[in-house]
């Protein structure tokens, strides 16, 4: 039996299976759902950044005709949080609000206007508390911390780890450099706002539709908060109009819609406004960071010390993991023989931050790659050479116990440097123009699930029916990344069927077996492998049955182009399926994926960072900067990405281009910034995202390192390509104008400030001067792995 990828479905650039439905407006998003008798939910949100709720009077709202229910915090008193270590949220505030926009009460009305009027009739009396909005304020002891009892500081989580002998590493260094950087927060700004529709079905079970990337986690948390057995709840993730990590948390509106449906007996729809999306947030953490690295004269890293100060906003969310991500993946690209990582995540009276494309790693990657650019200059090396001198090697283990398998980073660098002609351009372009270089790495799925369990992380069920139809069942939620197309491609490749001919049932807790969700770039690797296993089993059933019938050796039977072939005999796929069903009974197969054993270290914090495989990217950006206005224009981006294998090159290219766009937003203009507790501009007019006019030409270079454990060798592409773009642009600005802006976004006023410094006193830098004198715990020593990084 022949199952290797020469059928040609894997590797073919093809549109998404749902492209036509998307383009023609036929795909049904959550806001397109409507049910008879449906009510409209609306959430009253806090106008205070930090306050105790003295009283809430809902009587006028309840009395308004058309209002079916009004909820407050007491109706849903169970605390929750996506991570078991951070159970610090309530569906509606209980006693206290912690940021402007914190959900306080909710209503269900017979139409959206009644719901809006009803929330305006709710009287809330607040007792304002002092507010904390900066990292510096948050590490001070105050009487009223956001969580718990005072006096206390607003520390959420802290980490302090030593891998190898860091002091010795610095002692042998010929050159040591320190830098401080700041990375502003940003929102995912998916085109589709979050929304949910809930109803009680005829059998009394609750059905919750939500634009979510994580139907399973929503299912678990809804069961806890609503106090309903999970078996009585069905969660359906609707196709999302973009996720980018913004729909990987469980939100107030989902739980509120569900509860309103239960108490009213009517279907309830609750869709957020754009402003509410900015206040619900869970996006990029603002991070202040400090890095110190020791180098030998020839540019080899001898030790690195990284400190991060992570502004978490008001709740934990994924923050305990986000914090660790600000320190854990530095070693995925470079051999760092000794590494110290200290970080602290703090609570502030702003919307909670969480995972956004690259989760916790774009900030330190920016710092690290700009830091290396400066070190290269110190040492008289070119920016490519200093990276090449320190590149991580395939099939090694890093000092912090990350198992590296396939690694195409060297090829990514070579190809991107070549096609951009970086070496000809760097330091040789006219003033105002520059090129910058950077690299990055990302996980193909977190090896450790969000809650501890021994079950598979992905399961796929396939069913073939007598008509020849094959249905793929998977909980993988397509958040725009194309996971459904990926599943269809993998199954189609193995069975020799066109992806468009398959039936795909996804992201529904009643119908599909587990997939933990579309986060950490896990779906291609994990659900893809599960689909591969299930497909191989189904192929095997069909092939052996056909071989049996034809009385030939199964090894001589092959699948492809909708038929089963043995020698010169060809049996159409539907006929082959009937032969197999006659032999085996129901044609249902399953596949599972669990990460390989032993790839997670055994220190506290080791759970964040390990992945079955890492993707690699290298980027060159060309910029044009106007020294009078400080405007930075990105003219061209070259991005090489090691995706393992392109299951669908068109989607891979789309992810690269989308990553470049999102990265350019973060490096040039996007700011989830606040004045006091108020968002600077919670609208798509005031929150600046690059338009098509700001989008440069992007040259996507696909590198295939063929990972031994990936499905057909594939690794992730959804997040990794964003990482190197940001520092590449910042480094290009330096090449263009000789200035360092150690803070993103590169607002024109910051560029001018750096230029002014250069003209006045030769200080060509804009950025934070220092980090707070925070008393980190002394680092926990972790032994490097026995077969660890060679120094």
């Amino acid at each position, binding site marked *: 039996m022949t199952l290797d990828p020469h059928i040609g479905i894997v590797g073919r650039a093809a549109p998404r299976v749902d492209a036509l439905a998307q383009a023609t407006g036929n795909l049904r998003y959550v806001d397109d759902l409507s049910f008879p008798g449906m009510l409209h939910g609306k959430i009253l949100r806090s106008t205070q950044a930090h306050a105790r709720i003295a009283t809430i009077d809902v009587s006028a709202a309840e009395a308004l005709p058309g209002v079916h229910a009004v909820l407050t915090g007491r109706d849903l008193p169970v605390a929750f949080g996506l991570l078991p270590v951070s159970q610090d949220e309530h569906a509606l505030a209980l006693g206290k609000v912690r940021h402007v926009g914190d959900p306080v009460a909710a209503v269900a009305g017979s139409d959206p206007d009644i719901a809006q009027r009803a929330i305006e009739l709710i009287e809330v009396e607040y007792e304002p508390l002092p507010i904390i909005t900066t990292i510096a304020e948050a590490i001070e002891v105050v009487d009223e911390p956001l969580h718990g009892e005072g006096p206390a500081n607003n520390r959420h989580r802290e980490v302090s780890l030593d891998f190898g002998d860091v002091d010795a590493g610095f002692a042998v260094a010929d050159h040591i450099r320190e830098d401080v950087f700041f990375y502003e927060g940003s929102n995912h700004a998916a085109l589709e706002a979050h929304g949910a529709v809930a109803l009680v079905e005829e059998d009394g079970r609750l059905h919750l539709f939500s634009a979510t990337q994580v139907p399973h986690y929503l299912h678990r948390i809804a069961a806890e908060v609503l106090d309903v057995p999970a078996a009585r709840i069905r969660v359906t993730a609707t196709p999302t109009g973009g996720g980018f990590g913004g729909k990987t948390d469980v939100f107030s509106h989902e739980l509120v819609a569900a509860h309103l449906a239960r108490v009213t007996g009517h279907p309830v729809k609750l869709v957020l406004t754009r*402003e509410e999306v900015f206040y619900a947030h869970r996006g990029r953490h603002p991070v202040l960071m400090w890095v110190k690295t020791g180098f030998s004269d020839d540019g080899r890293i001898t030790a690195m010390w990284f400190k991060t100060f992570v502004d978490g906003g008001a709740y934990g969310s994924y923050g305990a993991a986000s914090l660790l991500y600000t320190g854990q993946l530095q070693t995925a690209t470079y051999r760092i023989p000794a590494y110290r990582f200290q970080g602290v995540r703090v609570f502030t009276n702003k919307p909670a931050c969480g995972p956004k494309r690259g989760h916790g790693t774009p900030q330190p990657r920016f710092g690290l790659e700009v830091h290396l650019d400066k070190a290269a200059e110190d040492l008289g090396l070119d920016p490519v050479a200093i990276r090449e001198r320190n590149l991580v090697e395939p099939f090694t283990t890093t000092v912090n116990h990350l198992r590296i398998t396939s690694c195409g980073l060297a090829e990514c660098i070579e190809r991107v440097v070549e096609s951009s002609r970086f070496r000809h351009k760097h330091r040789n372009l006219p003033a105002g123009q520059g090129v910058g270089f950077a690299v990055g790495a990302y996980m193909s799925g977190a090896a450790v699930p969000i809650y501890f369990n021994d079950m598979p992380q992905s399961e796929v069920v396939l069913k073939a029916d007598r008509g020849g139809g094959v249905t793929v069942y998977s909980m993988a939620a397509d958040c725009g990344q194309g996971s459904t197309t990926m599943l269809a491609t993998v199954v189609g490749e193995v069975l020799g069927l066109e992806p468009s001919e398959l039936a795909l049932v996804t992201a529904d807790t009643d119908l599909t077996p587990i997939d933990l969700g579309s986060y950490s770039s896990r779906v291609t690797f994990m659900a893809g492998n599960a689909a591969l296993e299930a497909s191989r089993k189904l192929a095997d059933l069909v092939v052996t049955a056909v071989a049996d019938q034809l009385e030939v050796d199964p090894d001589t039977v092959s699948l492809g182009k909708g038929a089963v072939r043995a020698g010169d005999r060809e049996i159409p796929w539907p006929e082959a399926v009937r032969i197999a069903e006659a032999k085996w009974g129901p044609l249902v197969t399953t596949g599972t994926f669990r990460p390989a054993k032993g790839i997670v270290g055994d220190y506290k914090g080791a759970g964040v960072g390990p992945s079955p495989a890492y993707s690699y990217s290298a980027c060159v950006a060309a910029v044009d900067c106007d020294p009078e206005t400080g405007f930075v224009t990105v003219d061209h981006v070259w991005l090489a990405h090691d995706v393992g294998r392109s299951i669908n090159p068109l989607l891979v290219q789309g992810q690269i281009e989308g990553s470049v766009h999102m990265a350019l937003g973060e490096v040039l203009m996007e700011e989830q910034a606040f004045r006091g507790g108020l968002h600077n501009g919670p609208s798509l007019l005031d929150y600046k995202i690059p338009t098509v006019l*700001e989008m440069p030409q992007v040259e996507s270079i696909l590198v295939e390192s063929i990972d031994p454990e990936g499905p057909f060798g594939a690794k992730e592409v959804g997040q990794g390509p964003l990482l190197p773009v940001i520092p590449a642009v910042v480094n290009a600005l330096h090449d263009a104008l000789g200035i360092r802006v150690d803070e993103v976004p590169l607002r024109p*006023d910051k560029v*001018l400030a750096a230029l002014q410094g250069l003209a006045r006193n030769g200080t060509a830098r804009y950025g934070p001067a220092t980090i707070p004198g925070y008393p980190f715990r002394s680092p926990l020593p972790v032994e490097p792995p026995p077969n660890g990084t060679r120094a």
Partner: protein
Amino acid sequence: MLRLPPIRHAAPTTLEEAITLLQSEGAVLAAGGTDLIPNLKRRQHPADVVVSLRRVGGLRGVRVDANGTVRIGALTTLATVAGDSRVPAVLREAARSVASPQIRNQGTVGGNLCVDTRCDWLNVPDTWRQAAEPCLKAGGEMCWVAPAKKVCWAVSSTDLAPVMIALRAEVQLVGPVGARSIPVEDLYRMDGLDQLAKAADEILTEVAVPLEPGLRATYLKLRRRGSVDFPILGIAAAIHLDDARTCTAARLVLGAVASAPLRATHAEDALIGRPFGSEAVAAAAEAARLLARPLQNTDLTSRYRKRMVPVFVRRALDELAGD
């Protein structure tokens, strides 16, 4: 964004009817609605009835009259103006710089001249305005941008007005007692709360733009992105040079740095009667810089915007130096 509040929609077919409707309490005028509708959704001001001009005849189109004056109906879309070769190039350019293609297909010339002043403390939904104390323009008692005085500093955000002023255009206003024409320059007053020097029941019906042979004019706009954004600085410059390249006339107007477009008369004086060259241009740029007092209520910092004033003035004037 919230849904529209309950509101009555009136679509009169004559100007007289529209004027009568505007005299009722809580009436607001709509042309393309691209500014009004979002403002209403954000509950920026109360409104009971939207008086739409869309069914009133005779308010659309571009024509050149016997005197060679370009007359543009107030309801002519920005897209139409941007694409009409009879319209002076600088005005077409300014129209093309407004917002985005979709908004230019809907937004009108009259609407852009009357676009409400903007402030990033104000242009947010009601809920978030409640989170701060309401400012003057939101019906409160104070200003978040400059708390010392009880003055509203919301920013004039029209792209067309600076150019119209530089071109010495006039607008026709029709009210209960008839029509009058005033220079566009006189349409504005320095008040973020109430920027238009016209009565609430007067309707802007037409803009008359004189064509001046030999006039060199340009408009430069500062904004973060190449589309969508309102101006955070606009420079309209129009000059005449004689054969010896002496500047014989100059009009320089700054947009989006105050509650009304600013005529930079000192900058004009620095140009008029002098050889048009780097010295005069530098003097004009400096004079314009002194005039501009942007505050911290739009995108980017006020300091930055002020720094950009002389840069943009110089670039605008340099552009006019050609040929």
